[in-house]
Each structure stands twice: as structure tokens, then as C-alpha cells.
């Protein structure tokens, strides 16, 4: 729609076909099936090449190409499309158009179940002490009660880590996610020095040994940061791989206590990972006095916290685990 508006301003006659195509594209984007479209689209291009050789031989099938054309190709020419590293990195850097991902953590609910930590470490192939998300014990002063606070990358809108990276290995996407490309990272750890939230980890040694199922797909996906690599940085990715599939992040759905809300700021809607209840983001923040970590630093985090008030459970100091490196 925006495109047509602009062309009218220039005084040109709007092209009806263009409007049609534009609105169809917008519809598809809203439906969120761009990933599937690009996959089948590439398959279609591949298949079209073979079609020239075997014209009219087989049953035809309709598919959508990447530029939203509906085309027919022989059914037996369809092959599964497997994105390569180059394509994964390109789309991983671009992000998902039209989205502004946001997370809200209700600290009144957190009992330090650490299911978010486990789900995250399992998805990203991390050792038990390698955290993308870590539940911390917080205590503001002697007279205030301690509480649990899951802490991860804050996906700042003004990220200090991105500013200092010398090689563009860590970057900010259009949907608000800060990612790290471990095929690019030189391991200088400037981003770790710059991050006030201590959100980043470094692979000081070879990453965790993988099970057979984990080594199934060795192609590096920048949206999952798997496989991890020695001598590079890793960090929370807001489960960008799941968001592309239209699902909630690993930590969000793993929580048994309803701590995590996740959604799109543009839609002003967030969904609770435990109850699957959807709420208006701005209302949730307003009614519960939502805040962000260290706003005085000007980092503009995309993660909000709801204060740990009216907790319905006793605080229990967790044991300190022993780790060997």
C-alpha cells in the first residue's frame, strides 16, 4: 500500500496490476509464509530448468515463485530445497520484515525452575555453564527481598556490542534481534567488554561434544548459532530460527511458571509461553509497572521486566553448582 501511496504523490497514474500484486505481496507477508514461499520458489526455478528438457511429459503442479508468480511445473521435478550457508547468512542478517520482537518477563512468577536455561542449552548445544539465559538471584539492598531474574541478551536498540565489533560479526536486524555470525567472528571479545549485561559467552575451548542427532545438520545456521565454534562468541538469539517458523522461543515455551511473554511490538501483542494467553503489550506493561534493565545506559533493551511483587511462594536460596572446565 505504501508503494502505491508514494507513486500517487509523484502524480503518476497508479497501475492497477501493481496494486493487485502489491496487496497480494502484503497479504503473503502478513500470513508469514515467506520462508515456505522462498523454499518452493527456488525449487520452482530449479524445476523450470529441467522442464524445458521434458516438456509435457508429466502431471503439472502449481507453485509460487519467489517473486510471487504462480507457475506450473511437472510434479516429478519437485525437489526438496535445502538452504546453503550463503543463503542462511543472507536471510539471517536481514531478519523478518515488519516485526519488532519483544519479550516481557514477569519476575513475580519466576521460581528458578531453570527450565528456560535447560531448553536453551539443549537447542544451542551448550554446556551446563555456558549460558545464553541464566537465572540470577537479585537483591537490591539489605532491606529488600531477594528474587530470581532470568537474564539474557537484551537485544538493545542501541547495542554497544554492535558498535564496537570490528568485522560486522554481530549485527542488529530489522526485527530488533541482535545476532552473532560465528563464521565471521574473529574472537577479539570487544563485544563482551562492551556489554553491560554480561550477556555474551565465548568458546574458550572446543564446544560441547555432540550426540549423533545433533550432528545431523552440519550446515551453520546463523539464526540458531549451531554448530558452535571454538574461539568465537555466542549469545541469546531470541530463537530466531523458531520465529521464522512462526513459533515461540525455546525458553518461552519451556517455562512451567508463566514467566515469559513474547510477541511483536508492532502488533502490541504478547503471548505467554506457558498459558498461551495473549495480552496487549502496552496494557501489560502499564498495569504491572514494567521496566527495563539499566535504562540510564541508553541501550534501549527490547526486554521488559515486571517487578517481583505479590509472589505466591517462598524464596529459596539455590545451591551453587560445581562446574569443571
Amino acid at each position, binding site marked *: 500500500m505504501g508503494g502505491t501511496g508514494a507513486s500517487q504523490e509523484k502524480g503518476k497514474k497508479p497501475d492497477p496490476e501493481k496494486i493487485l500484486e502489491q496487496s497480494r505481496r502484503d497479504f503473503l507477508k502478513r500470513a508469514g509464509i515467506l520462508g515456505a514461499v522462498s523454499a518452493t520458489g527456488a525449487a520452482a526455478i530449479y524445476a523450470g530448468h529441467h522442464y524445458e528438457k521434458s516438456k509435457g511429459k508429466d502431471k503439472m503442479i502449481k507453485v509460487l515463485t519467489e517473486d510471487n508468480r504462480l507457475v506450473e511445473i511437472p510434479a516429478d521435478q519437485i525437489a526438496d530445497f535445502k538452504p546453503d550457508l550463503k543463503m542462511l547468512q543472507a536471510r539471517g542478517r536481514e531478519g523478518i520484515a515488519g516485526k519488532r520482537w519483544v519479550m516481557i518477563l514477569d519476575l513475580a512468577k519466576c521460581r528458578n525452575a531453570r527450565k528456560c536455561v535447560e531448553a536453551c542449552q539443549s537447542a544451542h548445544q551448550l554446556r551446563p*555453564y555456558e*549460558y545464553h539465559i541464566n537465572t540470577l538471584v537479585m537483591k537490591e539492598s539489605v532491606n529488600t527481598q531477594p528474587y530470581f531474574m532470568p537474564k539474557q541478551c537484551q537485544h538493545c536498540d542501541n547495542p*554497544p556490542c554492535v558498535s564496537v565489533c570490528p568485522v560486522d560479526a554481530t549485527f542488529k536486524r530489522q526485527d530488533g534481534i541482535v545476532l552473532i555470525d560465528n563464521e565471521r567472528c574473529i574472537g577479539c571479545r570487544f563485544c563482551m567488554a562492551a556489554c553491560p549485561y554480561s550477556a*555474551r559467552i565465548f*568458546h574458550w575451548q572446543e564446544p560441547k561434544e555432540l550426540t549423533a542427532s545433533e550432528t545431523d545438520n552440519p550446515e551453520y545456521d546463523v539464526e540458531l548459532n549451531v554448530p558452535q565454534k571454538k574461539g568465537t562468541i555466542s549469545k541469546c538469539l531470541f530463537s530466531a530460527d523458531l520465529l521464522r517458523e512462526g513459533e515461540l522461543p525455546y525458553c518461552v515455551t519451556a517455562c512451567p511458571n508463566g514467566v515469559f511473554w513474547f510477541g511483536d511490538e508492532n502488533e502490541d501483542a504478547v503471548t505467554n509461553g506457558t498459558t498461551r494467553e495473549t495480552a496487549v503489550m502496552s496494557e501489560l506493561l502499564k498495569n504491572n509497572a514494567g521496566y527495563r534493565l539499566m535504562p540510564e545506559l541508553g541501550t534501549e533493551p527490547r526486554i521488559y521486566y515486571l517487578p517481583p511483587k505479590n509472589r505466591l511462594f517462598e524464596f529459596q536460596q539455590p545451591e*551453587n553448582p560445581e562446574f569443571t572446565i
Partner: protein
Amino acid sequence: MSSNHNISFNSARLEKVSADLFRTVRINKSFMAWMGFLGLGLAACLYAYYTQLRDGLVVTGLGDYTSWGMYIAHFVFFVATSLVGMLISSVLGLIGYKWIKPITRIAEIIAVAFAAVAGLVIISDMGRPDRLPYVFLFGRVQSPIFWDVTVVTTYFVLSLLLYYVTLIPDLAIGRTRLTGRPGFLVKAYDILSVRFSHNPLQYKILFRAIRILLVLIVPMAFAIHTVTSWLFAVNPRAGWDSTIFGPYFLSGAFVAGTAAVIIAMYFYRKNYRLSEYLTDDHFDKIGKLLFLVSLVYLYFNLNEYLVPAYKLKKFDAIHIRELFSGHYAVMFYFTQVAGLIIPLILLLLKPLRRPLPLTLISAVMVVAAWLKRYLIVVPAQEHPYLPIQFVPEKFVVYTPTITETAITIGSLLIVLIIITILSKLFPVVPVWEVAAEDDEKSKTSIS
């Protein structure tokens, strides 16, 4: 540097000076033994680096919280020490001080050696040194690392050029006086002296080139250490979040560099028997220079520590307490008292500006300067804004490992190798400038 292009030599004086100064240019047994010792030491350190390449940075004491440690402190120390080339040759030279002439080359040797190896130290800290070319292929101008790589390289090239250009007349003097030296050395002098024949036009060009280099080196030296300080100051962390880090680092650099030059001067005076050229008077004067730069540095230290200590903002307070009365107190007071305040008092006394006592004071100050970099880099990371919890003990307190120390020493050995080669193959005191000096005093008799 003199603006008088009609430089002329009193031949008797030139013969004496060149005989004295080229005497040290030789490849003897002690040189080979010393190089062999350095080489063996370096081989052991390179093995340590090999284990780091093989196993990763896990061989160091670094962790996810203190992720910069000894290597980075060492890097800052190297960059700092190399700045002395700019202070002595450029600042004092351009102002017109004549007494610095015999020590300019020593300052340049220090500058070249430390600037050259600073880059290697940074590589030893990289998780993926194989991806070093990415800094040039994908470099982002927003990153202070990109600025650092650019200016350190430029400063090294300028310092090397200054070293070489001021060496050309000496090479020309030396090429006919190297009897009994290995053939390759004579050949090298012949090629490197670019057919310099001491005519006035050549000197005119030479002086102009030196002047341009001296001027260019000033902003570049300011840039390298200011940018190095910004590697810390741009991060929102208590202990680094300071607006005076640029001048604070710069003033500290002059202390470290001047002390290093004094140690080198003493070594050459003793071992190369150059007390006629590196006189007590030179030590006295550079001792006064050391006093001046130390006083400026003390002033910056007062600002850097006492202002946050007065306010005691939450995280600044943790940092300050660690230094003043906590885990780092001994090291902190060593750097401040033994490394700065006591030397300032001692340097006021003329007898202590004699060669040996001044060198001992300088040695303490160089050690303190190194520890000071460690105190700037490490403690600020051990107390981040959010608590360090549920992590291995290793991540909580940083303790350098033996492997890490060996790799750090390795880069120092490379510096010593460069200094040794430069000072054994070429005269360490500029022959032509020293020989011409007396002529200028008795100019009336010549012109």
C-alpha cells in the same frame, strides 16, 4: 635537527667518533650467544602459543567475565612504551634541544621494536587469529579496533622511516669503515646508504624529510595511545567509563617510555663503553624529563582515582575499594607509591640522577608501569553491573596461567631480538649528528 644545511665535519673529530661508534657494530660470540639465548626462550614461548592454538584460549586464565587479561595489558604497555620515540625525537627535537641528539636513535629503536610487536600481542589475544584478514576485508569504521589497527601500523611505519632516514648519513660514513665485518653487512650498508655522499643538497633533502616525519609522528603518536585508551573508555563499565582516559594513557606512556630509554642508555653506556657520548649530563637531563612526565602522570592519577572515590557511586565504589583496600591493594600501592611518588622525590636529588641510580629508579618504574596496565584492564571486568552466578570458579577471579605468561614473555623476547639486531648492526648513537655537533660550536672557524 639543525636547519643549517651546510653541515661539515672536522675530519679528526669524525674519525674519532666513527671509530668509537662503529666499534660496537660487529657480529661477535657474545652477540651470537645472546641471540641463541633469546631464540631458545622464544622457541619455548612459541610452543606455549602452539598449545593455545590447539586447545583454544582455555589455556589462559580468562573467562566470560574477565575476558581481557594479561595480553591486553601487555599490548597497552607496548603501545605506551613506543610513544617515547615521539616525545624525544619529535617534541624535544622540534623545540630545538641539542642534548637529545645522542639519544634520539635509542628512542627510535625502542619505538620501532615495541610498535612492531604490539600488533603481534593483539593477535595472541584473538580467538580466531586465522581470521585476521577479516579486519581488513570486513572492517567497520565505527569500531575502535579498526582505528587502532590503522594508527598503530602507521605509527610503526613512520617510526621505522624516521629511524632509517636519520641512519642514512651513518650508513654512508660506515660503508668504508667496516673492515673485518661480514661481507653481507658491508653490502647492506652499501645498498641502504643509497649513494649518500654528504653533499649539501642531499643534506637539505634529508633535513626536510626528517622534519616532515617528525611533524607527522606527533599526531600519529597521540592517536595510537588515545585510540588504545578508547578501547576501554567507550565501554559502559565502572573503572573504564572515564572521559580523561586519552590524556591519562598518554601521560602514562611517556613515563614508561622515558624509563625504558634510560635503561637502554645505561646498557649501551656500560656494554658498548659509550660514556663519552651518553654522558652523566645526558642522564641528568633525561632524569629531569622523567620527573616532569611523572608529575603530569601523578596529576592524572589523582583525577582518575580521587574523583570517583569522593562520589562513591555504587559500581565505581566497588572498583575503587578493590584497588584501595581489596584484592588489588598491594599492586595498586606499588604502582602509585613505589612507581610514582617515591621516584618523584628521588628524582629531585641530583646525585640520584646519575646513571646507575637513575637506571634503578627507571627499572622500578617500568615494572610499575606494566602492573598499572594490568590494574586498568583486569579489575574493571571482575565486577560487572549484574552478579556473576552459577558459573565455574575460574570465571569469578582471573588468575593468569603459566602458558599465558610464557606467551606474554615471548612477545617481550621478540622486542629484545629486534633491539639487539638493530643495535648490533648499526651504531646506536648517530655518528653524523654527534660528529657535526662540535663543528657547529666552532662554526666561525669553518665558515
